[in-house]
């Protein structure tokens, strides 16, 4: 063994030692290179897995949204048709009220439409995609019979244009001779004329 590490040995085996060192370097390079490539592939794979996870999550959301929207589509179609997502058409309301007044033969009809405002909802609830707007409408009417008043209110709340939920109403008998042709009942009601505004739509309020 001493001869191997003697000067003569080093000289004689120099090429072999260099070959060994070169082989060690080459082997290490191969191992390191393949390891690096493997790590890179794993990293890419992890990225791909993440992308797949995201794609599946997005797809699941889309499916849920599709199912949800399919369930909601009919309702939403009705809402759109009733103008819930349109701006207030106050002239339409005026004409509607006048038409109903005539239809139900109201003796008198007074109404006030307040400026539109953002409607505060119970519990402070807000929606991310819509603003809920409302104009408070106060109606005072007189009629010969309470049926006329109730019919007027029913037709107004069930109108095919807009939503007018009546939240307060007082109906009172007016004293007098029942046979007189003058109003025998009066009503004072308040309702909210509700419209929705799409927050994503760039339309003036």
């Amino acid at each position, binding site marked *: 063994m001493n001869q191997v590490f003697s000067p*003569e040995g080093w000289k004689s085996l120099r090429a072999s030692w260099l070959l*060994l060192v070169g082989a060690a370097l080459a082997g290490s390079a191969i191992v390191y290179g393949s390891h690096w490539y493997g790590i890179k592939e794993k990293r890419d794979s992890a990225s791909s897995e993440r992308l*797949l996870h995201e794609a599946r999550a997005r797809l699941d959301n889309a499916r849920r949204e599709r199912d949800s929207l399919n369930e909601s589509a009919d309702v939403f179609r009705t809402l759109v048709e009733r103008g819930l997502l349109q701006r207030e058409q106050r002239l339409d309301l005026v004409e509607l009220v006048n038409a109903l007044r005539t239809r139900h033969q109201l003796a008198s009809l007074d109404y006030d439409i307040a400026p539109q405002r953002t409607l505060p909802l119970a519990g402070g609830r807000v929606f991310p*995609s819509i603003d809920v707007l409302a104009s408070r409408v106060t109606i005072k009417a007189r009629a010969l019979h309470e049926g006329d008043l109730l019919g007027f209110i029913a037709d107004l709340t069930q109108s095919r244009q807009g939503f007018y939920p009546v*939240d*307060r109403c007082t109906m*009172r008998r007016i004293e007098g001779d029942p046979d007189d042709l003058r109003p025998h009942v009066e009503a004072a009601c308040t309702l909210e004329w509700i419209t929705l505004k799409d927050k994503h739509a760039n339309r003036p309020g």
Partner: protein
Amino acid sequence: MARHFLYLTNSRLVSMMTQGRRIVGRREFAVTASAAAELERHLQGYADVPVHLLTDLAEEDFRLDTVPHVGSRDREAIVARKLAQMFRNTPFRHAEVQGRESEGRRDDRVLYTAITNPEVLRPWLEVIEKLRVPLAGIYSAAVFSSVMLEELDLLFAHTLLVTFTPGGAMRQTYFRDREIKFSRLTPIDPEEGQSLGTLISEETTRTWQYLDSLRHFAEDDRLEVCVMLHARDRVIVQPALRDFAQIQHRILDMEQVAAKLGLRPAPLSSTAEEVFVHLYLMRPAANHFASPEIRRFETLRRARSALRRAAAVLVAAGVAWGGWNMSRAFETTEQDQRVAQQISTANQEYDQITRALPSFGVGGSTMRDSVSFYNAAIRGFPRITDFAVLLSQVLERHPEVRLDQIAWQATDDPKSTPALTRSPPATDVPVKAITAADTAPTRGAEAAAAAAPFSNGRYEVALVEATVREPTNDFRDALETVTRLAGEIATLPGTTADVVESPLDVSSSVAIQGRHGRSDPATMQLRFVLRVTRDHGGGA
């Protein structure tokens, strides 16, 4: 692997090239003054092939001795010292510890051997040294011949192995219990009229006598003389061999020996050099005579070979490891491709779903929020008309009751109360309670209503003001009628009804005022107020 064997006798040098376990080349040199130069030319073609030098020389001496049984390191020192003392004039010496004595101190038995005249090796070794040929070792053919006994199953207590060397000499090697004890080389130089068989017989007899003089035999011992001969010589020799009680001759037919050892082709003569080379290839032996200095080129060759093998192993290991890494990486790549395919499929389905979504010109979230708001706040919002219809159904069963006023509201607070303005009495009542409500109308928070949050309309709360017509002064029946009316209203689903103002408040906390004239009307109209609450359950 190629090997180069040089079989050296006093008159011949036989060169044999082997490949694997076959002798593939043979050349014989006469030991003359020019032989070294011829060998040099011959060796130049095989300078890189390791050389094994087997000696079968007359100058080889054998001695037996015992040394105390000590540790291996001490024994090596003792043996080396004795070896140097015995053969101080030659570097080609060797010792073998053969076993232990059976009696006394049970010392170790040691065989010492040496080539006493180094000059017989010098010219050949100079050629080898000059050409830097790797010399693997110098071996004693006599010592190595013990392998032949084992391979040929010559398992006798006393064996004399007789072999022939190139150049006409006869080697007699004595083994006791397969341990070499003595060996001598005799030139085959028959006298006139003396046959080879007679010469062998006389020589073996002489050797027996010598060994017997050294007390190697007991009275009943017999020496088995094994003579390895080619068939051609056997017919000459065998008739001359005479067996005695102490000597038994056995002919080892060269072809049979070769067949048994797997030596092909079989040697063409009785000389044993090819058999020894083949035995070496079967069972390589350790070097006997060569010093490390002489063997340095072989040492370096082995080191070079080891380094190259190590380099190859490193590269192979790196390639294998790298291949394993790459295979895993490729597996990952294939998995990535599958994942990419799955992503593509998911995205395609997502796009299809997105395109097929009902949009109505707005985003899905807008649609969802709109429907959510509608379902929560509007769809189930109570209507006064529905309330009025239900109330009318109950009032129809009470013609004595006349409805004067309804104050109704939809709210999320069941305790809230709508505003009610008290109606003037229709008729004068002789007895009535005086309450705070007579002086101030019932007022709700009308002004705050506009600023209040829009309710979901879980509850309908109404104040129902009405009168009941009863015979004058029949207050008890009036009270019962109103109580019954409240009870009937309360039977409606989710509805409660309480009498807020009784036709006559008879509690002790309020005052009662009675005013009777000479005659009272036949009937009276008694005012009362009911508070009706209707729960729609969980919000509309």
